[in-house]
């Protein structure tokens, strides 16, 4: 095959694959460049392996804490090495089915292994090879941010790369104790997972948990974590790190006082940094912002007209999110725009998002603070899951649903849930919002009784009724 391609894609994650599949459909000859493992973050060291192990940790926890009178706690025993082994098999299986075999099945797709660096606007060097792209997509994703904490470079530390099945950063031994640095979605998911598998976990977070989300979500989660025995140090600044023979010690400043936290391992989960620093984007005339993200217009075109960028590398522009399905959508849009003159714009106004803690969290649309910040007339109501029949029936009443709705037309602007099954039921809210549903639409829909989805019906009714006095089925 020639070294000149219609579409040269840097990266091989969900964004890259969606673009490659669509571009190939449209007749393009496509090359994809990957310097790590085929498939990108999600399948190799992100969503997929974390969800696998989080579910195992839930089984361990529920066995030990059965919630029901009449069920005795049981210790199921954790063989961490074996757990990691089955996780690795799942990763390899998904990578083979969803990425490698898909790539193999595409006509005119070439995979190139190595670091990619632009030499001019159409030319990229990959190892010894020089390839050109008539059109180019930058979809190189992101990696864990490493904060500038004195001493960090001198101690071994973990990142979410510990989830990987085939790279050196993978973890195969359960740490007896673990400091999790960070309070975002990756930090909280992994902190609870390790705690439930048997590590003694301390979270050190600069603000509270899940800043940027509805504040009550992080507070409810913090209470649940504390009840499970996870130690939380919030509003805490990491001052410096030191290694000692037994592990690491992190000096923390909290409310003006200093203290030292010790653990066998340190997990750094303080955010994600776009992978744009080694690409030589300047040689291609592609601008980046101060944080390394690639500015794009609504059709995902960069400052260089024949180059598009999508997925994690565009950060939160155009209401995008750093998330697998968002990148995949954007990859398809880029292919349509590049080869079918579709002029499609990315619409990030309704993107459901979930955090797979227990209780889990799921959100769609704006937070109350975001709505207030744009001075839009709106009203919010928070309904505890205590009022959802299923929650009481299965002894899982922790959590709430919060609606934010327009006071002009009662259109729903945001839905924020923490509680049982939140990542599943959020799709009802997302679909409703996609069709511009009002509070009345949620109330009008007959819901299956008793399901956690009734939380949406009850939460919408909370604006007009006293939901503590509803009979069965919330009518």
């Amino acid at each position, binding site marked *: 095959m020639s070294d000149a391609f219609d579409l040269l894609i840097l990266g091989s994650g969900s964004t890259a694959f969606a673009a490659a599949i669509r571009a190939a*459909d449209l007749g393009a*000859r496509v090359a994809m460049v990957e310097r790590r493992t085929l498939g990108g973050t999600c399948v190799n060291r992100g969503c997929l392996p974390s969800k696998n192990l989080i579910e195992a940790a839930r089984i361990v926890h529920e066995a030990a804490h059965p919630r029901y009178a009449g069920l005795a706690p049981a210790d199921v025993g954790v063989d961490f090495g074996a757990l990691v082994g089955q996780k690795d098999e799942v990763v390899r299986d998904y990578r083979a089915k969803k990425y490698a075999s898909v790539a193999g099945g595409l006509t005119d797709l070439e995979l190139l292994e190595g670091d990619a660096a632009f030499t001019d606007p159409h030319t990229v060097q990959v190892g010894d090879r020089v390839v050109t792209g*008539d059109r180019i997509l930058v979809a190189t994703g992101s990696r864990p941010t490493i904060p500038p904490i004195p001493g960090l470079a001198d101690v071994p530390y973990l990142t979410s790369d510990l989830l990987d099945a085939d790279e050196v950063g993978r973890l195969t031994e359960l740490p007896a104790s673990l400091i999790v640095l960070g309070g975002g979605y990756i930090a909280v998911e992994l902190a609870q997972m390790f705690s439930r598998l048997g590590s003694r976990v301390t979270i050190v977070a600069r603000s509270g948990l899940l800043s940027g989300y509805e504040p009550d979500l992080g507070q409810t989660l913090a209470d649940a974590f504390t009840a499970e025995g996870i130690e939380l140090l919030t509003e805490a600044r990491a001052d410096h790190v030191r290694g000692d023979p037994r592990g690491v010690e992190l000096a923390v400043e909290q409310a003006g006082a200093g203290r030292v936290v010790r653990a066998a391992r340190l997990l750094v989960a303080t955010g994600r940094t776009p992978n744009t620093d080694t690409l030589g984007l300047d040689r291609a005339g592609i601008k980046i912002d101060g944080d390394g993200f690639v500015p794009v217009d609504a059709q995902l075109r960069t400052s260089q007209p024949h180059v598009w960028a999508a997925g994690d590398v565009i950060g939160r522009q155009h209401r995008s999110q750093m998330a697998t399905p968002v990148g995949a959508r954007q990859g398809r849009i880029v292919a349509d725009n590049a080869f079918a003159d579709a002029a499609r714009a990315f619409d990030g106004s309704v993107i459901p998002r979930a955090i797979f803690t227990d209780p889990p969290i799921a959100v769609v649309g704006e937070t109350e603070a975001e709505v207030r910040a744009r001075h839009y007339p709106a009203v919010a109501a928070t309904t505890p899951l205590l009022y959802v029949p299923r929650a009481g029936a299965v002894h899982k009443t922790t959590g709430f649903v919060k609606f934010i709705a327009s006071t002009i037309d009662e259109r729903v602007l945001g839905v924020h849930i923490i509680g049982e099954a939140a990542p599943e039921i959020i799709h009802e809210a997302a679909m409703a919002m996609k069709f511009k549903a009002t509070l009345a639409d949620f109330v009008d829909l007959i819901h299956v009784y008793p399901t956690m989805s009734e939380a949406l019906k009850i939460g919408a009714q909370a604006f007009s009724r006293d939901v503590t006095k509803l009979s069965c089925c919330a009518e």
Partner: protein
Amino acid sequence: MTDQQPILFIDLGVGGMTCDDCVVHVTEALESVPGVEAATVDLPTRSAVVTARSDVEGSALAQAVRTTGQYNAFERGRRATSGE
């Protein structure tokens, strides 16, 4: 219309073709564009070479193919008929 316009080859990528009937449909679509003298469509390489006046826009060729509702085309480049 002018006869002064030079004739050249326009290379296209073509998507969506699965059989010889598709080749016929895409060829007909391309040859329906004013200024096109001939179109050679190749299924295995998913490409087409159009012999046309130089004022024929790639977008017009692409549009003609897309109007079929089943296929896509885009311009890869153009070259002189006298040689590569």
